């Protein structure tokens, strides 16, 4: 309740800043619209929450909870791999039934899922807060862009190169920062991310500066043709549907890899580091090597997604790799649930697809992200779909 009062006070305070214009005129129209939405929505949610706590909705919530429990039991009887199979089949079949627009959004969602899963290794599994993750995405994108422009190298050969350069960048960033923990690490990675962006922006000879690189090739594919005899044909996968399947493949690869990492020896060691670094070290976990590995692995997936992004847009510029993008990927991981693969997929879907649905509220997107991040941390810090294995750090308890 006190929180609600503080919230109201906060909005009241923000009001004058938003409504008065520097030329001395008072035109409250703009701020009325913005704050109308913000205050209205948050107020409604708060009131509903209060009413819920007093038990007014028991008549509705109890049957709903019962149905949900029954549904959960039903879901649990079907094996997990079947759900994944159904999901994959549905995603695979999507381009047959939908148009360009939906495919475009779906490609974006999948790029962000790859990024979110990469960041998940660093933040969710190893517990290192990384605010400069988008730098690896940028490194991957520029690696493919430059190799494609200067050496005309095909996408599939560049993919491992992009992953390698990104992993290298991850090691370069990881190495000096490994001695730090928590907040310091966050701000240093933020600094590194900005350094990478400034380099891309100012190194004219290599990256063509703010103008970006144009004319990056789409992925190509060789296939056997038996039309007239036997020959090896080559096509460019320029069509959106082809790109959709490329990123689908990349996403499936990422999901499998992250899942395998999560439940491997390395993944357990990462989680041990997340829960208590000192104890993990005493138990014989080589924290230095494993933290570096977490950075490198996270960066690898970021780099793969970046190479695809460059191939998809056929254009890269430093503007795509700002801090806000990092924050957005982080918001996905946090919203979905740190360390949980389905959670992150849900988070990416929510943060990319929802703004598309509410197209007229496009401008409010980042505002809502920020607000949602704070509110999530206060009311549901484990995310929408929490990971099964998650504890609290021992040094937070004292």
């Amino acid at each position, binding site marked *: 309740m*006190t*929180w609600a009062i*503080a*919230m109201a006070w*906060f909005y009241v*305070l923000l009001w*004058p*800043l*938003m*409504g*008065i214009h*520097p030329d*001395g005129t008072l035109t409250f129209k*703009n*701020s009325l619209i*913005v704050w109308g939405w*913000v205050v209205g929505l948050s107020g409604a949610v708060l009131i509903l929450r209060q009413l819920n706590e007093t038990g007014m909705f028991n008549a509705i919530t109890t049957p709903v909870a019962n149905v949900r429990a029954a549904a959960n039991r039903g879901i649990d009887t079907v094996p997990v791999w079947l759900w994944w199979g159904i999901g994959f089949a549905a995603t695979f079949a999507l381009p047959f039934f939908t148009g360009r627009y939906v495919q475009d959004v779906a490609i974006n969602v999948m790029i962000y899922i790859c990024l979110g899963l990469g960041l998940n290794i660093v933040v969710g599994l190893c*517990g290192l*807060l990384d605010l400069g993750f988008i730098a690896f995405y940028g490194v991957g994108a520029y690696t493919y862009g430059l190799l494609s422009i200067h050496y005309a190298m095909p996408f599939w050969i560049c993919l491992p190169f992009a992953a390698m350069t990104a992993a290298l960048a991850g090691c370069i960033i990881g190495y*000096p920062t490994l*001695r*730090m*923990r*928590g*907040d*310091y690490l*966050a*701000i*240093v990675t*933020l*600094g*590194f991310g*900005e*350094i990478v962006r*400034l380099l891309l922006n*100012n190194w004219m000879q290599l990256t063509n500066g703010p103008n970006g690189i144009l004319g990056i090739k789409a992925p190509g594919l060789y296939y056997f043709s038996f039309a007239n005899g036997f020959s090896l044909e080559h096509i460019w996968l320029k069509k959106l549907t082809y790109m959709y399947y490329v990123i689908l493949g990349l996403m499936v690869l990422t999901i499998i890899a992250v899942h395998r990492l999560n439940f491997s020896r390395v993944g357990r060691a990462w989680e041990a580091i997340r829960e208590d670094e000192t104890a993990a070290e005493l138990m014989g976990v080589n924290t230095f090597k494993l933290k570096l590995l977490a950075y490198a692995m996270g960066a690898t997936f970021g780099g793969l997604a970046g190479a695809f992004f460059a191939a998809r847009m056929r254009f890269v510029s430093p503007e795509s790799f700002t*801090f*806000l993008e990092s*924050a957005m990927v*982080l*918001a996905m991981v*946090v919203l979905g649930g740190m360390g949980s693969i389905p959670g992150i997929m849900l988070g990416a879907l929510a943060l990319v697809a929802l703004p598309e649905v509410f197209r007229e509220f496009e*401008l*409010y997107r*980042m*505002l809502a*992200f*920020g*607000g949602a*991040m*704070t*509110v*999530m*941390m*206060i009311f549901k*810090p484990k995310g929408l779909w929490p990971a099964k294995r998650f504890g*609290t*750090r021992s*040094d*937070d308890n004292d």
Partner: protein
Amino acid sequence: MEFFIQQFINGLTLGGVYALIALGYTMVYGIIQLINFAHGEFFAAGGYMGVIILSFMASMGYMETHPWLCLMGSMALTMGYCAMLAMAVEKVAYKPLRFASRLSVLLSALGMSIFLQNGLMLTQGVYDKPYPTSFTDGGFSIGMVTMSYMQVMILVMTVLLLIGLNILVFRTKIGTAMRATAQDKVMSALVGINSNRIISTTFALGAGLAAAAGIMVGLYYGSVRYDMGFVPGIKAFAAAVLGGIGNITGAMIGGLIIGMVEIMAAGYLSSEYKDVWAFVILIGVLYFMPTGIMGENVDDTRV
């Protein structure tokens, strides 16, 4: 040589501004061990509130008759406003998480920062807002070195604010309570210090200083932008770390060093990479000397 002195004065001006922002970071960190990501937004909000009040006064015609009075008045109002804003932000976003994990508080702060920045953008527009600066035009020159009245004003104001803060923290009762809370929360609570109130006060003080810095930067560059808080915020954080986080004198010295390095690097090396140096210093300090210049109370949970 003239060039060097000129750059030195510019560096001093910029460094003073960074020092003012850095103090907010360092005081908040000293008390609740939190990097207040939204601090840069208080700086931006200060710049906007300053331009709003000053323009309002200019349109009423008071600016021609009493320019300095207007400036002082708007500064006081802005500082008060930002102090209240910071207290509200603390109550909304940080207080419910007092006993949560560090990562959640940090993410909550980050969310607040994005929220405030985009709120500013949505309502005040994405374009630069010009400051009414005509009354401080002009300057004087000694030899080849010119110094505008604006720079003199910024330097004087910065020094006054820093002296005021030092008196507040080291000479008054509330300052003593602040330092006690920073040292040991349980003990200070036992001797009757209300730690929630002290934390609020700390946020208010830091945001007030940041707001003053926001006005000065607005006056100096002639305009404000909704995202002006981000990069100076990080540089000021670098300054706070350089001086030893949690240490007030350290933050002042760190701010001056960062400002000086930035201006010198822009003047002698390359102006494109001037933003990089603060980050390089930050990383270097954290790697080689994590306690900073003046800090001593850093245990392994902080670094």
